[in-house]
């Protein structure tokens, strides 16, 4: 026979101050866990939503980021002629040389410097990355010293608002447009015309990578094979999706930090929960005796108190998740040390993350409640009833 859940619910309600304090303790642990993990999730999401499996990056083998790669003009010309490349709106094959450089600029509000990634690209880039949309102003004009800036970069760095004239390499450039990249990694970038940028940074017209749009999955695979075999091209082909999946490695330290925090904090919280539960058991010795007399088995007593502890932790867990949800609207940034530039992203408190957090709360409740529950069940009936 199982003791009705009502019994636990009513007790927790009657002792509401104790319940509240313990639940808040569990809740804070869960909130910290969710917030730190939401930081890691947000960073991952920026990368994962960036890549398209039909967009292929042609780059120097073994490099960890686009920025470290470089490519000569002849190689660009060979790649343009390969089979399986989709045609753009202008009827030309979509093979875009892209140049990546970083510039060190002061952040808003304290002026601490960080690196912004500048992507020199072409107008075809918007065809293959439809998530990037100019929301204010206009596109940069090829052949002019114009840039378009992500709305997040404009908000985070000094001197990158519409109409501003920031210095990139040698001279001033004009911000002519603001774009929104739907939370992808491009939201951390500034875009310009590749040839102009190459000039500015003395790269002699060369680029870091070439982005190629494959007509379909089969063409993507065959393009990778062709480049691999061509002795004129000591290069490697990666899908954009794979490339950005590799970049998620940069969230690993955050995840480790979040786990470490959660483990240590939850040990502390489990001890506190145990204390509360021992207290709850001690103040109900007489009731436990009565329940046993009524015929409830020791096992159902254990079940009852473990459940109560889980309930307590779950209330806390829910509170913690609720407290963390507003973080979804917070934008922050960190440096991806592979590209050596700042990634701007939103915290991502995902349903999955909250599910994990609640499971985590259940585990804390179970661990904290087990010993007190067992001690309750093991008390001899006579002792229980003779007390008080």
């Amino acid at each position, binding site marked *: 026979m199982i003791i009705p859940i009502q019994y636990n619910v009513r007790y927790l309600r009657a002792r509401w101050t104790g319940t509240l304090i313990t639940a808040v303790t569990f809740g804070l642990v869960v909130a910290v866990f969710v917030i730190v993990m939401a930081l890691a999730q947000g960073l991952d999401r920026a990368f994962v939503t960036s890549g398209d499996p039909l967009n292929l990056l042609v780059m120097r083998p073994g490099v960890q980021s686009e920025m470290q790669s470089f490519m000569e003009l002849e190689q660009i010309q060979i790649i343009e002629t390969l089979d399986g490349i989709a045609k753009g709106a202008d009827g030309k094959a979509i093979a875009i040389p892209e140049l990546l450089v970083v510039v060190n600029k002061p952040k808003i509000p304290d002026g601490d*410097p960080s690196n912004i990634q500048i992507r020199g690209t072409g107008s075809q880039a918007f065809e293959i990355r439809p998530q990037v949309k100019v929301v204010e102003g206009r596109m940069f004009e090829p052949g002019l010293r114009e840039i378009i800036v992500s709305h997040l970069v404009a908000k985070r760095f000094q001197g990158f608002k519409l109409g501003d004239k920031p210095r990139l390499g040698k001279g001033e450039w004009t911000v002519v447009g603001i774009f929104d990249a739907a939370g992808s990694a491009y939201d951390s970038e500034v875009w310009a015309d590749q040839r102009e940028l190459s000039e500015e940074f003395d790269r002699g017209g060369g680029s870091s990578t070439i982005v190629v749009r494959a007509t379909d999955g089969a063409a993507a695979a065959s393009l990778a094979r062709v480049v691999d075999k061509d002795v004129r091209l000591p290069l490697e082909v990666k899908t954009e999706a794979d490339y950005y999946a590799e970049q998620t490695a940069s969230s690993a330290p955050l995840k480790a930090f979040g786990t470490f925090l959660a483990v*240590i904090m939850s040990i502390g919280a489990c*001890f*506190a929960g145990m*204390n509360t539960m*021992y207290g709850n058991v001690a103040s109900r010795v007489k009731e436990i005796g009565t329940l046993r007399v009524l015929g409830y088995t020791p096992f159902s007593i254990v079940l009852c108190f473990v459940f109560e502890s889980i309930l307590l932790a779950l209330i806390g867990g829910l509170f913690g998740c609720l407290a963390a949800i507003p973080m979804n609207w917070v934008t922050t940034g960190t440096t991806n040390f592979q590209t050596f530039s700042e990634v701007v992203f939103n915290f991502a408190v995902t349903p999955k993350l909250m599910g994990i957090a609640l499971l985590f709360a259940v585990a804390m409740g179970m661990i904290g409640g087990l010993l007190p529950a067992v001690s309750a069940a093991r008390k001899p009936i006579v002792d229980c009833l003779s007390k008080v």
Partner: protein
Amino acid sequence: MTYGTFIRKNALRNKRRTALTVLSVGFSLFLLITLQAVLDSLLNPPETEESTLRLVVRHAVSLGQSLPESYQRDIEKVPHVKYVAPVEWFGGQYKDPKNFFANFSVGHENFFQMFPDLKYSEGTEEAFMKERMAAIAGVDLMEKFDWSIGDRITLTGTFYDVDLEFRIVGTCEGEYDSSTFYFRHDYLQESGAAFGTVGTFSIMADSAEAIPGIMETVDEMFRNSPAETKTESEKAFQLGFVSMLGNVQVLIGSISMVVAFTMLLVAGSTMAMTIRERLREVAILKAIGFPRKVILGLVLGEASAVSFLGALVGIGLSKGLATVNVGAFTADFVRTIDPEPAMLAIALGVGLAIGVIAGLFPAIQASSMSINEAMRRLE
């Protein structure tokens, strides 16, 4: 019976509860100490007498841009500059990207004058001067990869499309950093990489007072040139990387606040529970004439004693962590988490304060309750 014994006996009456509270406070305080130690090591990079005299010159646009080699001669002419040496982040990989360690090419001519704060194994200087392929490896690297002096190893270039083979001619050991790998800049240039360019220059000033002047003179010298410079103290240069990590201070600061608040809740609720059970005794103490102040003191004393014990547990745990090499988990951003004695003293203080604050409410409640009320509350 003295008050001290009274407090001790009371605290030990429910041994399990006290132990659980001590452990709970202990683990929370351990976390607090760890977080603060991490923050401290990030924001206050270790300094030596020589490191405070060093400056770093980089390209004004970003570290991704290189400077012309010829700048060395120009900078050498600046007053109060003792030595100038090229230092370049090679970013080479040893076999697998997971084996990450810092490797720099350096100007060998005055490397040993520039970095006298490293301890070199015997004969390192002569060999490094003589041999182009020579490399100096930190003692931690020697141990990790099981290298010995005379070994030949290859690093695969990431920024540069070259693989370089080195012969390890000596080891270096720093007070804080023993896992860096140095080799000769002329060897890197000979390989075709970094031809005529240098990533950064390190400058040694003749005195700390000269540093602001040098910074200004160097940057002014190259203003309006194709490669403008940014010169800053070595410490500011290092802090630049920390600021790139993001707002670490706010993150760690707010987590610390939450942890401290949790401790307060735990200690407070335990004390409230304890006092509630003992209201009758409090009434008896009052009845036999103990003044309010003493009762207040007894409750506060017990609360602070328990959380003080918790603080000791926390300090013990963090001393344990100090023996762990955490560099492996943090990509060497934080090498060891060894809190300063001052920080441990603060932790003890925080422990005591938590006890006092946590005990305050139950203590006031107990001491201000009338005898009648207290007797009745517990039937």
